[in-house]
C-alpha cells in the first residue's frame, strides 16, 4: 500500500478536458495536485505516516517479546541456541546490501540514469529473494526438527543435537535399532522395531529410594503410549535394594511394541510415584528381548510434569564449571517449560517480517517494470523513493530482530 498512485490512472482519461492549468511535467502527475512537488510531498508524508503505522503494527510483537523475556529469561537463554547465527548474519548482510541498492535506485531515478535504476532494482529484488531463500532453509530445518511454535513445539533434539523424547512426531533418524549410550546416559538416534522389551528395574534400581509405580513405553505420541500401556504385563521380581535390609518388590514389565517406533531418543519412560518422593538416582534399563546388546535407558523428557532428567548417569558431583561447559550443559539439557513461547514469538516476528519482505518484492518488481518502460524521470520518481523508505524500515526491523533473537547472551 505504499504506492497508492498507479500510473495508468483512469483519472486523466475520465476527466479529459478538465485541466486546471497546472504545469504538469510528467504525465504521472495526477490532476488534483498542483504540480510535481505537491504530489511528491504528499506522497512522502503519506509514506512516512504509513511507516509510523508499520512501526506500531510491529510494536505489539516487540511488547510480547519484552514481556515474555522479562518473565521467562531462561527460555530465551536456552532456545536461542537453536537458531543458527550464521544464517541470521548472512541475512543481515543481504538486507543491508539491498537497502544500499534501494537508496542507490532513488539516486539513479533522480539523475535520470535508467540503466543504473534497473540494475539497482534488480539487485534489490535478488537480495530480497535471497533473504527469503535463506529464511526458507531455516524454517524447513525447524519444521523438520519440531522446533516450532505453541502446541507444535516438540523438538527432536536439544540445541546441541542431544536427542529428546518427542511427544507427537517422528523425528528423522537412522533405521538402526535404538542404542542407548551407557556412558552418557542418553540414547543415540535409532529406531525400535516391533519387538518385545523387558524393562528391568533391577540393575539400576539398587539405590532406589522409592518404588516405581508405572512404566510407560512412551515415545511417539500419547496414542502409542496408551497402546503400550495396555500391553504391559507386570512380572514380579525380587530384588535387593542396596544398603537397605528390607527387600522390596520392584515391578518388571514386559512391553510389546506393535509397530515401528522410530526416532532419536527412542526409549521408555518411567514415572516414579509422587514428584516429591522421587529419587534423583533412579535408572531403568530397557532391553530388547530378542535383540542382543541393545539396551535402552529410561528418560523422562516426554511429559511436562516429569521434565527432571532422571537416571543414575546424570548425577554429577558439583564442581566449578567453565562457561563453555555451562553452555554445553545448557544445550544438552531438555528445554525448560514454556520454551514454546520463544518459538511462538520467533515465528510471529520473523513471519510477519517475511511477509513484509515478500510484499517488498512485489513492489520492487512493479517498479522494475515501470523503470524498464521509462516511467521515472527527475520530476517523477516518488514511487521509487517511497518503496525505498519502506524497504529501509523492513531492513531496520530485521536489524532489531537479529540481535534480539539470535545474539542473546
Amino acid at each position, binding site marked *: 500500500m505504499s504506492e497508492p*498512485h498507479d500510473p495508468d*490512472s483512469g483519472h486523466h482519461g475520465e476527466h479529459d478536458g478538465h485541466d486546471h492549468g497546472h504545469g504538469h511535467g510528467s504525465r504521472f502527475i495526477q490532476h488534483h495536485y498542483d504540480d510535481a512537488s505537491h504530489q511528491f510531498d504528499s506522497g512522502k508524508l503519506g509514506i512516512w505516516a504509513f511507516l509510523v503505522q508499520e512501526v506500531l503494527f510491529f510494536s505489539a510483537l516487540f511488547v510480547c517479546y519484552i514481556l515474555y523475556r522479562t518473565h521467562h529469561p531462561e527460555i530465551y537463554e536456552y532456545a536461542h541456541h537453536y537458531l543458527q547465527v550464521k544464517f541470521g548474519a548472512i541475512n543481515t548482510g543481504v538486507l543491508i546490501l539491498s537497502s544500499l541498492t534501494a537508496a542507490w535506485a532513488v539516486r539513479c531515478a533522480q539523475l535520470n540514469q535508467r540503466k543504473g535504476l534497473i540494475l539497482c532494482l534488480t539487485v534489490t529484488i535478488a537480495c530480497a529473494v535471497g533473504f527469503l531463500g535463506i529464511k526458507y532453509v531455516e524454517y524447513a530445518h525447524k519444521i523438520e526438527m519440531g522446533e516450532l511454535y*505453541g502446541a507444535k513445539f516438540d523438538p527432536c533434539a536439544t540445541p546441541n543435537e542431544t536427542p529428546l523424547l518427542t511427544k507427537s512426531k517422528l523425528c528423522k533418524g537412522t533405521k538402526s535399532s535404538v542404542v542407548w549410550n551407557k556412558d552418557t546416559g542418553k540414547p543415540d538416534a535409532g529406531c525400535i522395531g516391533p519387538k518385545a522389551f523387558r524393562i528391568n528395574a533391577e540393575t539400576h534400581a539398587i539405590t532406589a529410594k522409592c518404588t516405581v509405580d508405572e512404566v510407560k513405553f512412551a515415545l511417539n505420541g500419547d496414542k502409542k503410549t496408551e497402546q503400550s500401556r495396555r500391553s504391559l504385563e507386570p512380572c514380579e521380581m525380587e530384588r535387593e535394594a542396596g544398603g537397605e535390609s528390607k527387600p522390596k518388590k520392584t515391578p518388571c514389565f514386559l512391553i510389546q511394541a506393535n509397530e515401528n517406533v522410530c526416532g532419536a531418543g527412542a526409549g521408555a519412560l518411567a514415572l516414579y510415584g509422587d514428584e516429591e518422593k522421587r529419587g534423583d538416582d533412579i535408572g531403568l534399563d530397557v532391553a530388547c528381548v530378542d535383540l542382543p546388546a541393545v539396551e535402552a535407558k529410561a528418560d523422562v523428557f516426554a511429559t511436562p510434569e516429569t521434565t527432571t532428567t532422571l537416571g543414575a548417569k546424570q548425577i554429577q558431583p558439583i564442581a566449578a564449571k567453565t562457561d563453555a561447559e555451562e553452555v554445553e550443559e545448557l544445550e544438552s539439557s531438555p528445554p525448560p517449560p514454556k520454551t514454546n513461547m520463544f518459538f511462538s514469538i520467533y515465528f510471529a516476528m520473523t513471519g510477519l517480517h517475511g511477509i513484509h519482505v515478500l510484499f517488498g518484492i512485489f513492489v520492487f518488481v512493479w517498479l522494475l517494470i515501470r523503470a524498464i518502460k521509462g516511467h521515472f524521470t527527475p520530476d517523477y520518481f516518488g514511487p521509487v523513493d517511497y518503496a525505498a523508505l519502506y524497504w529501509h524500515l523492513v531492513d531496520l526491523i530485521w536489524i532489531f530482530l537479529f540481535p534480539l533473537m539470535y545474539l542473546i547472551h
Partner: protein
Amino acid sequence: MAHAATADTTPEPSYLEVTKGWKSWAYTLDHKRIGFMYLIGILCALMLGGAFALLVRAELFLPGETIVGQARYNELFTLHGAVMVFLVIVPGIPAALGNFILPIQLGAPDVAFPRLNLASFYLWCIGASLMILSIVLGGIDTGWTFYTPYSLTSQGAVIPAVLGVFVLGFSSIFTGLNFLVTVHKFRPQGMGWFQMPLNLWALYSTAVIQVLATPVLGITVLLLFVENFLHIGIFNPELGGDPVLFQHFFWFYSHPAVYIMIIPAMGVVSEIITTFSRKPIFGYRFIAYSSISLALLSFLVWGHHLFVSGQSRLATMVFSALTFTVAIPSAIKVFNWVATLYKGDIRLQTPMLYVLSFLLLFTIGGLTGLFLGILAIDVHLHDTYFVVAHFHYVMMGSTLVAFMGGLHYWFPKITGRMYPEKLGQLCAGGVFFGFNLTFLPQFIMGSRGMPRRYWDYDPEFTIFHQLSTVGAFILGISLFISVIYLAWAAKNGPKAPDNPWGGTTLEWSAPTPPVLYNFSTPPEVPEMYEYDDLVEDTVNGGWIRKPSTGPKTPKHH
C-alpha cells in the same frame, strides 16, 4: 483559468451526473462518490446492527426465555456490538460524511490519495462480507471484544469475524492516512491551521488516532487469527501464553477507538451549533486544541478497562488518574458549545435538534464515565448495565446522534435535495425520547447489580427491562423512518439551494450538489463563522452572501 471560457455556457454537471453507469461508481476515484457509497453501506449496516439490538431487547422483555435461547442470545449481542462498532460507528462520520466534506471544506479538488480512498471503501466491503460470513457460518458468541481464552475455544465462527476486523482496521487506517495528508498538504493559501473549520480539526485528530492505534488492533486480531488457526499460543494460557495481554492490546486500540468515534462527532456538532445559532463559535482555539489533546490522552487510559483483570495496583491508580484528565478537554468543548448557544439566534431545524440532544446525552455519558473511572466504584459497577448505559450514551447517544445531525445538515449538499423537515424534527424527537427511555433505566439496573450480557434476570429488574425494550423500539422505529425518508428524499425531495442553512465554511460555497472537482473555480477562503455577511435568499430559499462583500482574490493554488 480554463474555466473562465465555460462560465457562461451550460453549468458543469454535478458529481452525480458527470458520468453514468455502475462502473462509473465502482471505479470512481471521486471522494464524494466514495463517501456516498460508504454512506449507503453504513446505513445498511446500521439497520442490521439495529435489528440485532431490537432482538436482544425483545429477548429481555421478560425474565427467562422470551424469543431466543441462551446460545442465540450470546450471538445476538455479540453481532450487535461487532457490527455497530466496526461497521457503523468507527467509519460512520469520518469515512462517510468526512470523505464527502473534508476536501470541500478545504477547497481541495479531492483527497490526497483517491485510489487509496477507493481501496479503503472496498476493504470496508470485504470486512462487512466477512462479518456476514461469520453470521452465516454459525455466528459468534464471544462478545465484540473477542476476549481470550474464550475466543480460542468458542465453537462460533471466530476466524472470519476476526479476519473481518483486521480488514476493517486497514480500511480505517487508509482513511485516516488519507485525511492526515490531505489536511497537511491541501489547505489553500489563506487557510492556516487556525483558519480551518473545527470539523477539520476533529477529522485530523481522528486521523492521527486511526493511524497510530488501529495497527495495534490489526496485529492483535491477526495474532488471534493465527492463534485460532495454528495454535501459536501467545494469548493461550494452556500453551504458556498470557490472555490478559490480549486485553491490553485490544484496549490499546479500542479505547482510542472510542475517540475515533466521538471526536468527529464533536466536529460535526461544532459546525452545526454555530450555523444554527447564527453566531461565531465560542472558544475556537480551545475546541481545536481539545480535539488534539483528546486524541493524545486517549492513548494513556486503556488500563481503565482492566481494573478487575489483574492489573498491578500502581497501574490501576495511574490509569484511574489519567482517566479523569480526559474529562477536561471534553468539558471544555461542552462549555464552549453552550457558550455558543448563549444569546444566539437559534434555529431549531432537524440538525440542530440532534445537536441539542447530543449536548445533553454526551454530558450524561461523560459524567457517568467519571463514576467508572473511580477504582472502588468501578469494582462495583464493572460489567453491569451501568457500563452498558454509559457507553451507549457516548457511542450511540453522542456519536450516532451527531452522525444523524451531520447527515441531515449535509444531506442537501450530498444529494442536492431537501429532506422533509417536519418529519425530520419528529424523528429527532423520537430518537431523543426513545434513547433516554432505553438507557436511563439501565443506569438504575446496573447500579443495583444487573450484570451485562446476561440472558436471564431476577424479576425485580423486569420493569426496567421492559421500559428499556419499549424505548429501544421507539428509537429503532424513529431511526428506521429517518433512513426511509432520507432515501426517498434523495430522489424525490425538493431541490436544495447552495447554502440552505447559512453555513460559512467552504462546502457551502460549492455548487449543490458539487461538481466533479468540487469547485468550478478555485474558491476564496471565507471569513469563517462570520454570519453577518449572509442574508436569507427570499427568492430561491437558503442563504446568500451579501453583494457588498466583494470577492477577495482567489487563494487556492
